């Protein structure tokens, strides 16, 4: 699972290489796990059709921690839902293992921001087993075992028989992460999973997520609007501009961990991203 990856460039590589260069680099990296290829997404309100993203492209490789970062209105959550298969692109294509994504499926498990993603009628243990059984991935006995194993990994084995309403927000998110890990999806999709948590819990969850990744090396797509979180969690960050969402830059951030918070290199990176996101108006769109 944990293939040695070619992580190109230092933390301050030039934002977007020119197209031919990029193609050459892609060839050197092998086929990506997930390809978002010129994807435009639209949503419908009562009166009009709104373009959420416009011809967004990026590649994700195995064991990437890929972050979509941008202000609200840049369509990052919509993009994640499209990769989840809940929304169909009006233009372009999303490919997972070279197959076009057309419907939701258990190979792309989503961890949502909201706490109500856990069915309240199932215990924590049953919740983690649910997708395994629903997708007929495993039999009941194996599912129970794997669920317990994953709960243990997120430190909730003691709460296996509790119902979700008895848990705190952070614990609910841990269950959702355990549930996603148990499925061993090709891509783990996280839609601002820690945004509704308090700052201390959030910090702890980031730590735990990184520790889990260190151990399991899953492929992660993470949506956030916090620059710090993006730098800490991701190894590569896609910056999106708002109205409609377009690719602004892709940045490497594998050099940063939770320990680099507050360091001067980290501050410089934050400043740089901030400039790219918010000087849009000055440049003129």
């Amino acid at each position: 699972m944990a293939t040695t990856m070619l992580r190109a460039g230092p933390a301050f590589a030039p934002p977007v290489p020119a197209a031919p260069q990029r193609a050459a680099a892609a060839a050197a990296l092998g086929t990506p796990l997930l390809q978002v290829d010129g994807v435009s997404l639209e949503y419908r309100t009562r009166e009009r059709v709104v373009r959420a993203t416009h011809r967004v492209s990026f590649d994700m490789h195995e064991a990437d921690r890929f972050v979509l970062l941008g202000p609200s209105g840049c369509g990052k959550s919509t993009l994640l839902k499209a990769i989840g298969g809940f929304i169909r692109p009006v233009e372009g294509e999303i490919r997972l293992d070279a197959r076009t994504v057309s419907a939701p499926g258990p190979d792309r498990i989503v961890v949502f921001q909201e706490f109500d993603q856990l069915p309240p009628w199932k215990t924590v243990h049953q919740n983690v087993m649910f997708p395994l059984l629903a997708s007929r991935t495993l039999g009941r006995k194996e599912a129970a075992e794997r669920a317990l194993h994953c709960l243990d990994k997120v430190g909730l084995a003691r709460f296996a028989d509790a119902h979700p309403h008895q848990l705190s927000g952070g614990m609910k998110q841990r269950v959702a992460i355990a549930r996603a890990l148990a499925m061993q999806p090709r891509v783990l999709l996280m839609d601002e999973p820690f945004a509704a948590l308090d700052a201390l819990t959030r910090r702890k969850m980031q730590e735990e997520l990184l520790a889990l990744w260190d151990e399991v090396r899953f492929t992660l797509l993470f949506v956030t609007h916090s620059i710090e979180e993006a730098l800490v969690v991701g190894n590569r960050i896609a910056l999106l501009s708002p109205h409609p969402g377009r690719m602004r830059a892709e940045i490497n951030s594998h050099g940063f961990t939770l320990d680099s918070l507050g360091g001067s290199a980290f501050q410089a990176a934050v400043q740089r991203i901030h400039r790219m996101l918010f000087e849009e108006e000055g440049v003129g769109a």
Partner: protein
Amino acid sequence: MSALLNPPVRAEYERKLEPFTEVAVERELPLATRIWAQGAVRKGLILAVLALLWELLARWQDNDLLLPTFIATARALVDGLATGELIDKVRISFAVLLQGYLAGVLLAFVLTTLAVSTQFGRDLLDTLTSMFNPLPAIALLPLALLWFGLGRGSLVFVLIHSVLWPLALNTYAGFQGVPETLRMAGRNYGLRGLRYVLQILVPAALPAILSGLKIGWAFAWRTLIAAELVFGASSGKGGLGWYIFQNRNELYTDRVFAGLAMVVLIGLLVESLGFATLERLTVRRWGQQR
């Protein structure tokens, strides 16, 4: 003196805390409070007070034909139960009731499942409920008697009518209230069609479905008793409504009250044993309802 007031800088300190032993961290509630916390005790008290008021009112009124006392009614009820006559009537009523109720529940489920999956189903449910929900089941009985004859068939027909529409409306409203995140989580696991409805929508909408089931149950009882009262025995054997009707004709008012009391008792039993248990095991345990 400077114009800006700065708070003084104080020294830091750290305390070592011993394990807390001064007072007990948890205490038990007093016995009276714990007894009062039992729902059965409080409700039993309400029933006792009502019975007492009835007894007093009947004694003051002093007319057995109009209002028999609580004790006379209780005696008639015990007599009816002892001879087995009342139990027989209840059994007959119950058999018809269950048939109509279950058929109504099944149909409501089919209709709402259609409604959540297709636009046509939604329109169908909308139109049918707004047409038939206001129609009293009893008003359909003469028609039912023409179609299905004087017997069980027509009773089941009106029972279905009285259960189906309110339950379908409640269930559909419940389905619509299911959070979008939960829906997407379900679809994320590849659930669709009937499995999606049964494994995501039904449990998530269970509070609304349960209240629909309760309303439907009450409507079914009312309709059945009323139908038996108006049209008498079906297929030679009458149920509880027929028992009430017959005894009114013969001016056994205490037995009329015993029959009515039986309806009330069954209602209380079904509510406290059936629905309350169901609620405790599901929506309360899941934290969907307090």
